[in-house]
């Protein structure tokens, strides 16, 4: 600790350990670079005059909220969680017939992989392996992330169990895994909906359906890339179609802007968020179109699977990026709240 301290002290505090005692609460805060990323602020002052407008809509256009700090691995986890959930459910739905064995075992494998690789990705964001264990320190019903972590852990165990036992797994395990899978696939939607982020907050009712339908789509997309027999293919395709249609519908609804939320629903057309969002849309639609072509060809199937997967991944990154954009815009927070107040009065 003291080592970390003395090194950290050099920057920002510039206290000489020979002359000063460093035991303050913040003294443990490790600092690598002296300056935080001023980049996000520097250009602003050229654009903004320090001379205020007559009425003050905001504080020098500075962000009112903090942006999400999550890195690339989090959306990736969202995707994997979706696939895992979908597979778990499908696995449970399949009858124990031999012609579905391949699909069933693939599902078990993917479900198990998803719920184990997922946490690994989360840990990547946290930085330290042991840090993930803290997720299981308490159980907080108020926190979707807490609920999610526990379900993830539970599902993880069940999925592993059903993978090991395979066909011999008792139905309780199979159905348990399925239920856990639904949680894993869906809680992430609630997790985003349960934030102060103006965009996510605005669309809090839509996010869970979006995530779940997209989870179904992603599952199908992933399975479509695997060698399966005709029956299995049919099951996957039909299962997937439900998800893809649902996902498309949810995405359209997400984009809907009303005078009430015009500043908040933001970034779907511009910036990196917009790009990803549109890519997701295109990929999804293309996937569906391919599915509808009657011709039987494994390349068509694989292409559709690839597009769907791509779309599902883009969608999750798009949500993070557009969320960042929304957090950066003070009016996205102020506008809707003001109107709610006036409405209230």
């Amino acid at each position, binding site marked *: 600790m003291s080592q970390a301290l003395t090194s950290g002290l050099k920057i*920002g*505090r*510039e206290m000489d350990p*020979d*002359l000063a005692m460093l035991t303050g609460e913040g003294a443990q805060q490790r600092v690598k670079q002296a300056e935080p990323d001023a980049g996000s602020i520097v250009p602003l*002052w*050229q654009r*903004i*005059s*320090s*001379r205020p407008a007559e009425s003050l809509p905001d504080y020098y256009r500075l962000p009112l909220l903090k942006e999400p700090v999550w890195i690339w691995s989090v959306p990736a986890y969202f995707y994997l969680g979706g696939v895992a959930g979908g597979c778990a459910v499908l696995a449970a739905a399949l009858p124990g017939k031999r012609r579905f064995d391949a699909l069933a075992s693939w599902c078990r494998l993917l479900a198990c992989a998803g719920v184990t690789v997922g946490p690994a990705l989360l840990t990547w964001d946290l930085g330290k392996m042991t840090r993930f264990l803290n997720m299981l320190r308490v159980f907080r019903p108020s926190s979707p992330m807490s609920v999610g972590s526990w379900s993830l852990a539970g599902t993880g165990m069940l999925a592993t169990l059903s993978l090991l036992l395979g066909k011999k797994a008792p139905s309780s395990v199979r159905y348990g895994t399925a239920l856990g899978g639904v949680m894993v696939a869906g809680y992430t939607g609630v997790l985003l909906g349960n934030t102060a982020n103006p965009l996510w907050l605005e669309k809090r009712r839509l996010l869970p359906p979006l995530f779940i339908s997209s989870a179904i789509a992603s599952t199908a997309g992933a399975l479509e890339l695997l060698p399966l027999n005709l029956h299995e293919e049919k099951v996957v395709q039909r299962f997937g179609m439900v998800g893809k249609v649902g996902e498309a519908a949810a995405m359209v609804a997400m984009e809907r802007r009303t005078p009430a939320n015009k500043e908040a629903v933001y970034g779907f057309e511009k910036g990196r968020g917009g790009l990803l969002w549109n890519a997701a849309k295109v990929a999804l639609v293309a996937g569906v179109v391919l599915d509808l072509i009657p011709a039987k060809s494994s390349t068509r199937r694989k292409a559709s699977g690839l597009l769907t997967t791509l779309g599902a991944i883009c969608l999750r990154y798009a949500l993070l990026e557009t969320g960042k954009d929304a957090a950066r815009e003070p009016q996205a927070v102020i506008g809707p709240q003001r109107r709610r107040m006036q409405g209230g009065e």
Partner: protein
Amino acid sequence: MAECHPVGFRWVMEAKRRGATIIHIDPRFTRTSAVADIHVPIRAGSDIAFLGALVNYIISNDLWFKDYVVNYTNAAALISKDFQDTEDLDGLFSGWDVEKGQYDPASWQYEGVEVSPAAGHREMFSGEPRAERGAIIAAEKHDYTLTDPKCVFQILKRHFSRYTAEVVEDACGISKALFEKVARALCDNSGRERTSAICYAVGWTQHTVGVQYIRTAAIIQLLLGNIGRPGGGIMALRGHASIQGSTDIPTLYNMLPGYLPMPKASYDTDLQKYIEFNESASGWWSEFPKYMVSLLKAWYGPAATAENQWCYDYLPHITGDHSHMVTVAAMADGFVQGYFVMGENPAVGSMNTALQRKGLRQLKWLVVNDFAPTETAEFWRKAPEIASGEIKTTDIATEVFFFPCAAHTEKEGTFTNTQRLLQWRHKAVEPPGDCRSDLHFIWHLGRRLKELYRDSTDSKDRAIRDLTWDYGSKGAIEEPEAEQVLAEINGYDSSEQKYISGYKELKSDGTTICGCWIYCGCYKDGVNQPARRKPASEQNWVAPEWGWAWPDNRRLLYNRASADLEGKPWSERKKYIWWDEEQKKWTGYDTPDFIVNRPPDYRPSPDAKGIDTLSGIDPFIMQAEGKGWLYDPSGLLDGPLPTHYEPEESVLKNPLYGQQCNPARMEWVRRDNPYHKAWGDSRYPFIATTYRLTEHHTAGGMSRWLPWLCELQPEMFIEVSPELAELRGLKNGGWATISTMRGEIEARVLVTERMQPYVQNGTTLHTVGIPYHWSYVGRSRGNAANELTAFIADPNVSIEESKAFSVQVIAGRKRSDRRAAAGGPLNESDSGGPERDHPPVQEKPGGKHGLKAGKTELTEEA
């Protein structure tokens, strides 16, 4: 005040909570303005016009405090019939001496009387035998009806009659309405029931008429009866922990401890003469000899005897002005070899830093004591002229010693804070490495020098050999005992080593020893009084048992004025000190600043001497006649009454008189200190004023190294109004180059409505606000504001004018090829333009180092 003294401002806000009206007068809208009731943006350098108008308002509307003014001030005194006012001479007073290039104040005196001022330039009144003057004082002529045209009140009335609200509009850019709001608020809150206080800082002092700014405030406060009363007064907000102490125990060329003047070569040829010139026949300064002899005994101990005039001859004699800027000019001309700079950073904090560094380059050796090498210590490698290649480090011969100093937590000693309060600091930790206190440095230097001179028989070395220097020391580092030094400052009885408990005990027969008479009693009974820390919650609101205030632990000076003629408080609300008829003594919440058993009805007999000349209604005991001076019969070099003069470099012609500037001001007419035109210099069309920010400290030596402060104000910037920004194409957050004939700097631009232009008779005047904290070393850097300023000073105290001068501002960064830092004009000097002075004044004799000033003996060396 909120900017530079936030915790002092705590009490202003407390007063506001209780309903006080806060008026803030400043060219900028500062953190003080933000919470003030009234903010008055004034053109920098025009305060006397504003304050003078307040005087006029008070008198013409008959709002002055009658009983107070008639009895406690010199309003009734008659002035010599030879006196002529600026009214009669278009901005000059009578007595301008063309030969000497200065005023002869004889005609300013009281009718038939010669009085000595409580402070200021004693050399200015001729030295007749004391007794005579004492006698005349009692016979001073008065007109208590205040109607005699020669009485102070009438002269005051005439003098300020032209300072009208209209003049305020033209000279200060303040609307009549706003002025009247201020005037009314001030008068409504003065009188028996209420008092008003005036706080100022260097925004008032750093002008060529700085002293007269304060004088005008004094006149206002005396007229309103706001001096010597609780909630009244004029407060100088000191910018440093012990700036007050540094003048009480002065490291100033013209003073010895306790405001005793340094001997002057051509007057004070021996102790007798010295005392004659500096003692007053009446008032408290009649005690002068006691203080001087006790000081000499403190310094030279047994060697000081009546026979050898208590070693008076050991003291060096001054010949005119040896103040900071004069010294640096001499330095630049190669007349100074060695320079000690202790905890000071002139290469950033002083005027015309290029000239400062030029001075440093001419030195043989330089000693700097500080936390880390400052710009002054680094001048030979970190300076604009080095960066531009104008000067090569390898051409600089100066030998530089940097001594790391101990922090305030690593040594013990006293600060004298702004309210004359001595507070003792205990030592918390040992200084690291070779860091030492300045006390350690000076004491050990002294010991080494005594050693070096031990065997000398040369008479010039007697002073060092006889110097008493035996203070105990402690610890491995041999830190001298600060408490023993404090004890000597307090003084003790030479015969029986008993500590003196007050300056009244001092004697002139050599039996008392005292290092600084006004500090007498700070070590009363061997108790370290400044170390007293009785919690505020456990004593009355005056808190007399926290630290120790000079003189005699008085918290409010001249507090006898808080009571009326009979010695009763003017009002219950403003009760402070009163006469207790039973005990036959003055009493109250504070130590009475008066002869404690002198009844209000006491009147001196005509032949009274010394302090017996003070009557029971003479609260201002330091003055010869015990009255507050509305009019200064002597002591000031630039006139008995404040008069509005424009700054050396102005944007306006003096709207009141033909005389543009203070005739007695000090000018340095030299190539490396060029001045702009008197006014309307198209090359330098804007007003500039320098100042501090809350987040930094003066020249930055104590703040520019601290990340916690640097992040709050990270780099040098200037403040301009949106109007000026538009005019000069300045972008908020962008760069600007600011220049004068002395130098050129670049800074970030902060465009803000807190700066605002003044429209004065049709012309728009813009002000550029320039914080002066930054320079070339430290963790937060920028160009130094004082690259721009010039050597130019007030005649009375030689303080520079940095609060109002003219500059040019252009958008963009500084051009690197411009070379001025080494000290030559940036622009070809342009001698033309309007005159600053009336013809007789123009012929000021030039002194050494290009110095021109109306100051006694200045030219003797030339």
